[in-house]
């Protein structure tokens, strides 16, 4: 019993890394634009469908497909911010930091995308028999077994986090992003195009989730309700880790993964996912800004 509990910890860490990869984009979007993007999960779902389409029609492996899908999703994110969100932000410019109409708009976008895809593609569960999804990493003669696609997702989460951190901390663009996230008006006074920066940050967030989508599509089904499952989870992870903190999103994801997997050893796996929700509530009560979050 103890052995299976101990073995479930690395399983949880790997799964948690995958969760973190998905939540990273949400953290960036919130950290910079203060927009709570409820359509985050739907963007993930759309990207998995894009990889599925590329794989089925052109035989392109999803990891290679990242090169095609990520720039496209960046553009999608960029224009979502520019055309749908910016007008609402401008209108509510005077008061709130987190405009409610934008939040409602992203909820609408979530429902629209999920149902649009259900309408177009049906609710069937699809899988892609790619090399990564079919092969297993086995250690200790079967004591610890996991899919390679999950391991790659775990490693990818660090790669995505590293890349995002690099862009934000070491580039000119990143400087602008940091300036805007610290103080919107001061940045505008310094000559920065605030809304363009927002659009770029949004694009980056969606591009990040598109990369995570390539990893996810290989160990999870491709189906229109993916967004609902992982969108909610991403929220809880980002709150746990701290809104706007990149390492926070990773840490939050890993904590969630471990709680779920270790918990599943003591109760059914479905009940164990309830533990994540309990954890989320506890974090909100005792440390609302999250583990690594800024104010």
């Amino acid at each position, binding site marked *: 019993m103890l052995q*299976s509990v101990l073995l479930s910890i690395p399983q949880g860490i790997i799964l948690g890394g995958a969760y973190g990869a998905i939540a990273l984009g949400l953290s960036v979007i919130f950290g910079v634009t203060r927009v709570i993007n409820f359509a985050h999960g739907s963007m993930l779902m759309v990207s998995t469908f894009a990889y599925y389409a590329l794989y089925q029609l052109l035989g392109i492996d999803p990891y290679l497909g990242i090169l095609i899908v990520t720039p496209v999703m960046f553009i999608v994110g960029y224009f979502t911010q520019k055309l*749908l969100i910016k007008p609402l932000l401008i209108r509510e410019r005077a008061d709130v930091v987190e405009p409610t109409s934008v939040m409602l708009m992203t909820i609408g976008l979530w*429902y*629209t995308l999920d149902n649009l895809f259900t309408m177009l593609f049906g*609710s069937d569960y699809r899988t892609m028999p790619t090399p990564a999804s079919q092969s297993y990493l086995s250690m200790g003669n079967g004591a610890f077994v996991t899919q390679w696609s999950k391991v790659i997702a775990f490693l990818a989460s660090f790669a995505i986090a590293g890349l995002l951190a690099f862009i934000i901390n070491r580039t000119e663009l990143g400087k602008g992003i940091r300036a805007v996230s610290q103080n919107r008006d001061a940045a505008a006074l310094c000559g920065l195009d605030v809304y363009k920066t927002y659009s770029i940050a949004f694009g980056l967030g969606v591009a990040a989730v598109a990369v995570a989508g390539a990893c996810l599509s290989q160990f999870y089904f491709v189906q229109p309700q993916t967004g609902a*499952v992982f969108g909610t989870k991403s929220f809880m992870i980002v709150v746990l880790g701290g809104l706007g903190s990149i390492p926070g999103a990773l840490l939050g994801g890993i904590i969630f993964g471990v709680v779920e997997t270790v918990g599943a050893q003591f109760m059914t796996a479905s009940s164990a996912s309830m533990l994540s929700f309990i954890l989320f509530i506890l974090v909100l009560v005792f440390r609302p800004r999250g583990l690594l979050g800024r104010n």
Partner: protein
Amino acid sequence: MKRGNVFRITSAVLISALLAGSLSACVSSKPAEGTPGSAAPSPASVDSSQGVKVGFVWPLTGGSATIGQQHNDGALMAIEEINANGGIKSMGGKKIVPVTADSETKPDVGASQVERMITKEGVAAVVGCYNSSVSFTASETAQRYKTPFISQGGVKNEITERGYDWIFRVNNKATYDVEEMLKGIDLISKENNVEMKTYALIYESTDWGSDNAKIWKKFADERGWKCVLDEPVTVGTSDMSSQISKIKAANPDVVNVSFYTPEMIVFSKTMTANRVNPRLGVWSVGGGSQDPAYFKAIDPKAYEYNFVQEDWDVSGPLNHQWIKELDEKVRKEKGYQLNSFFAQGWTAAYVAYEAIEKAGSADKEAIRQALQNLDIQNSEDCRVILSGYPRIKFDKDGQNTYSTGTIIQYQNGVGVGLSPESNRAPGAKAIVPIPDDFDTRAKDGKK
């Protein structure tokens, strides 16, 4: 108007249109609001001037989509044959008009589709719905509208145990499934001197899986077997590493599985990757294990040595010429081999036809009585019972008491019938205890 305003108005209009479009897509898949008791029972007879309409409700999308498609293929091919052979002779050669609907593997959608078929399409009878959870609610609707409901696929006992006189189940119910499996385990453990002491239950958490687990526990307790794990799994779960590691730790003699196709794929792959080998094997109640899509998606290694409770006589194509010919036709036209689901769809459609033929009209009460008095004996010229039952006759609850299946074991990628002994080919033997040959098993297995 300023350019900004024009733009904003256009965006607002576009977004509203998108939202409205998506909302209407949402709404159309929700059940129709109708309070029980307020709907008047539909007229006893239906308009049969253009042929007799029979409704079919299957899961054509969702987790059971491939299975639903196969049921539908079987039903439609049977109707084609019936119409080509002269239709309903007692009604002057009127054709049967099949009306198909998608339950989306959801109980509320299934029920609303049945209601739509009865009230808008004017079907004389309804056949469906494969999933136990969907059949349970859909049949309730049919009972309310006093329309014959031929239940096919759902094994939940209660479907025919509610005292509803409009519901007739052709296939086996959950109790029969479990009895057949436990008898099979008894037989195989005795013959091969492998003692049976402990079992694990892992199952999908809706009616089918839960009922099976409950009944299994009841009968297994009577035999003195111990349950070492009881693990319901939510539909849509794509990762079962936690559950499999629990099974491994519990080390049961038998693992009883009830999953539909997507979860069965994940289960088999994870079990194999984790090298989990229960001594008396994995015993699957069916579902995904009978679906060609399952076999296409995984390596033969992953299902080698598995026992499956097949809901039809798998030796059909080997022993009967007409079934062999039908198998070839299905392979050519549909791209998969004749299987339990196609067979059951076919049989259910034929039962509907037999009842209408016997009733001689599209009057629902007449069809109901015809079903009550139906007695079809299987024989070499009988094309009704593709599923291989010896007979179809409904008891007072509407249950066909002659629905039997076969326990098979996959050996070298091929299903070998083992239990009951009458369904066993000469020389066939179970392979137990399950060998620990993960690297070499099913090397030359066919798919």
